[in-house]
């Protein structure tokens, strides 16, 4: 039996600020627990060394304003790079699955990155997914986000991609950051049904979450048939988490991982650094490695402590039925959308960066392509507290984009950069060619990654 790959990267020398929840101490007790248990010494585990991601790996998924270096620290490169090390180990068959137990996290980071949102600058899962597609030719991948916060960044990044199934269960956005992730959010017009949100009421327990898993997540995965399953393994659904109000346990997380059997898990949030993380992380590692976790529990855990109310269960059952139906009619809806919409599909939105206090206004145009997911044109302006107003123009050709979309996006980039324009920066992200260009208008300075 192959081992489970593990990178433990606690970034003991990186914090957002000394008392911020995303601080050095976050994985300290997790280190104590996993080192003391000696789990890394077992033949079921193979520990890997982290590495830094390349700037190109980041440009493949993000438009970093003004450039990659402005949005990241070395810690971000290591955290993202660690997921890539695990991805390589899984794809090369050195391990049967792998867990990147790393910080800083990433699932709130969106396509255009003006700053830090929800403790995240760059999206580790998105970077890994597009890396897997580019390097190993994968196409259909499922991401199951089990963080208590809606994975709005990951959702946004794959919103228009019908080959990436994004499932997020989380505490209802009406009661928790980032205030999104409702059942109506089902994906773009050409990717309808490949985004599935399961907003759960506060105080949902193991029972409620496992009902969702058994009756919605697993059946959907079965039908979608992804080539690879990724778990965005946030741990803030835990009953002791200080930032949320759910009642999930370490046992619950371990069982979830056994059932879900992700190929790759990447740590996201989880801020109960002392009473949850050491045990939840052990549970995930043990479940992935096939080690019996019946002896694992939090010191204050009692199986009878939390009980799901029948009212909650009824709500969850209804939710599951609705989302199952939504998922199953996705092809129908996409076909209808193709008929209804014109050549370009346009929408607007505002984004707030809580950590950095940035307001961003965005418009997106999607080409309603018959052959692929369609290229996107994103115009964005953001008022940054330090850098002032930045206007950017971004072109994104999706992985597996068609030659028409590629050519059209290329032409738009040339037109825009060949003349005077109102944007500070113009970007072209061509994932098919794997070429990432940016132009700083004032200096006519082009960078190619």
């Amino acid at each position, binding site marked *: 039996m192959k081992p489970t790959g593990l*990178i*433990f*990267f*606690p*970034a*003991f*020398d*990186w914090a957002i600020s*000394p*008392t911020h929840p995303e*601080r*050095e*101490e976050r994985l*300290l*007790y997790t*280190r*104590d*627990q996993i*080192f*003391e*248990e*000696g*789990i890394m*010494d*077992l033949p079921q585990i193979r*520990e*890997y*060394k*982290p*590495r*830094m991601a390349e700037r190109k790996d980041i440009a493949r998924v993000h438009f970093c304003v003004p450039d990659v270096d402005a949005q990241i*620290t*070395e*810690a971000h490169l*290591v955290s993202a*790079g660690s997921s890539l090390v695990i991805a390589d180990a899984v794809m090369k068959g050195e391990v049967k699955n792998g867990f990147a137990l790393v910080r800083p996290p990433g699932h709130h980071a969106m396509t255009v990155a003006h700053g830090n949102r929800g403790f995240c600058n760059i999206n580790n899962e998105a970077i890994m997914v597009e890396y897997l597609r580019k390097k190993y030719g994968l196409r259909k991948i499922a991401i199951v986000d089990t963080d208590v916060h809606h994975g709005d960044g990951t959702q946004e990044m794959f919103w228009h991609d019908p080959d990436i199934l994004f499932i997020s269960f989380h505490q209802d956005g009406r009661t928790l950051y980032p205030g999104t992730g409702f059942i109506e959010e089902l994906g773009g017009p050409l990717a309808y049904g490949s985004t599935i949100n399961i907003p759960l009421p506060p105080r949902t327990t193991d029972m409620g979450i496992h009902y969702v898993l058994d009756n919605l997540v697993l059946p959907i995965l079965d039908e979608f048939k992804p080539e690879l399953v990724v778990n965005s393994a946030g741990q803030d659904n835990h009953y002791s988490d*200080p930032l949320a109000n759910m009642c999930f346990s370490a046992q619950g997380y371990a069982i979830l991982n056994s059932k879900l059997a992700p190929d790759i898990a990447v740590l996201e949030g989880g801020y109960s650094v*002392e009473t949850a993380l*050491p*045990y939840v992380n*052990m549970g995930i590692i*043990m479940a992935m490695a096939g*080690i*019996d*976790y*019946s*002896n*694992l*529990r939090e*010191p204050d855990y009692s199986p009878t402590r939390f009980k799901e109310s029948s009212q909650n269960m009824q709500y969850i059952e209804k939710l599951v039925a609705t989302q199952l139906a939504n998922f199953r009619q996705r092809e129908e809806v996409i076909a209808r959308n193709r008929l209804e919409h014109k050549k370009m599909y346009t929408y607007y939105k505002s984004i707030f960066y809580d950590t950095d206090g940035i307001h961003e206004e965005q418009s997106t145009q999607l080409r309603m392509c018959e052959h692929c997911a369609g290229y996107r044109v994103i115009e964005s302006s953001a008022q940054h507290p330090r850098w002032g107003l930045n206007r950017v123009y971004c072109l994104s050709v999706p992985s597996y984009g068609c030659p028409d979309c590629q050519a059209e996006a290329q032409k738009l980039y040339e037109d825009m950069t060949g003349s005077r324009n109102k944007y500070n920066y113009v970007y072209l992200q061509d994932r098919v060619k794997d070429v990432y260009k940016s132009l700083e208008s004032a200096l006519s300075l082009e960078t190619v990654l």
Partner: protein
Amino acid sequence: MLIGIDVGGTFTDGVLFDGQAVVTSVKQPTDQQNLKTTLLKVLDDLLTASAGAKIHRIVFSTTLVTNLLATDSGDKTALLLLPGPGLPLDTYRLFNDTFFLKGSVDFRGRELEAIDKAEVEKAVDAIKVRGIKKIAVVGKFSNRNSSQEQEVRKIIMKRDPQMEVAIGSETAGQLNFLRRIVTTYYSVMTQSTWEDFASEIEKALAERGIQTQVDILKADGGTMPLQISRSKPCETVFTGPAASTMGGKALTMNPKNSVVLDIGGTTVDISLLIGGHPLYASKGATIQGHYTHINAFSVRSIPMGGDSPISIDQGNINVLSRRRGAAACFGGDYPTVTDVFNQKYQLGIGVALQSSQKLAELIKGTGIDMETLCRAVEDTVFNRIQEAIQEMFMEWENEPAYRVWEVVHGRKFDVEELIGIGAASAAIVPGLAGRMQVECRIPKYAAVANALGACVARPTLALQVHIDTQNKVFAIDQDGLSGSIPAGRSFQMKDAKELAQHHLVEIAKSRGMEQYAGEAEFYLEEQFNVIRGWDTVGKIFDVGVQISPGFIEEYQGVSR
């Protein structure tokens, strides 16, 4: 005068060293059944050679404990474990006679579950019935709070005062319960045999009227007084390679990236000096397949050496591992690796003509000419050694890292030189260095580098302090030391380092090595704010300080 004796698996080497030059060296076959006799025989030869000159220090390195562990012939020992929640109990059932008890503490030393006195007593009775007289008691996180282990020990002693008991926190205080179990178990298992040996040596020395300092080499390349070693038998494992590596370091005394190749008759032992510092095994000494908390050099052994016979089998040229006797140039019946190098480079080792003759006999009628044979053997030998060196680098470069700084700065090992020691190194190492395009050193005294390394090695000591200012406690990973820190003032990294340094000096004094305390260096300085809500309620420090392997003050290198 200094005396160093390395009791090896096949031979025992000894040197009498005047601080600059080897006055005499002695080599004797090792009597595995009676290491003491071999050791004393070599000692007596050296004492005779010293002609009454004053002996300042005697250092031994022996395979006694290594052999006990390899043959599983120590004393029967029971394990009482307090594993608490976490991995399944079977993970920790590594040895027979393992009992699991109630009781557990967490990573901050808080008691999660109390011990059950009646349960402990029942276990003691069961152990007694099995005829076992030794018990190792080990708890998960006992390094953060040892009170449960101590309590269990008290209960055992009360129930059966004849039992010998050791506890994990006093034996191996580093994080890693699995390795703590193994280390404590093996310590208990080997202790009385080692103590008997130590007593016999002391007696023999007294009989010879020697009142000098006697030290034992440890797996980490440092020494400890014989007296102190009585309670730390496991630290004397794998000291053969440690002696050789320290010998290689002593004879070159430079801060380069070097590979030490100890090439004997049947094995090549490889160790690395990174900027002059020996590389340690990242998971400690591995004993019988188990990782331990014993700090040991990272050594790779290849079952191949100067005496490895050459064979030709259906046109294939092979280097065999089983020794069939000495090289032909030393009167052996079969041509060996040494003969090939002797022939190829006209080294004039032994009776060189015999090398040529035996090799010529070997190729006769095979259609293989001498040049082809020599090249093939050389390639095999070089490739095996180079592959092993490469693997060691890769392993070192790919060791996990937990800080951004470590990942960003990476690790790269560029070999600058090969240091050849051991009897067959002069034949093989220069050619290999040429192929690798690095410098080559075959130092003077290369043949007795192991014994020389032992006699000039200085004492080592490493300790790590874990301080929790919210709970106002500290715990040290040596000897189960712990205590409380003063309340009412802010505790900073500076204070943490002072605390660590203070305890290092105290322990150094108790081991008679205080003159080296000034050489101590901090190797770990970690500090975490403990935040609850948005308030800092305390700090956690992990500070490590060590006297690393090096040489005694009077040693300044050998004279040319």
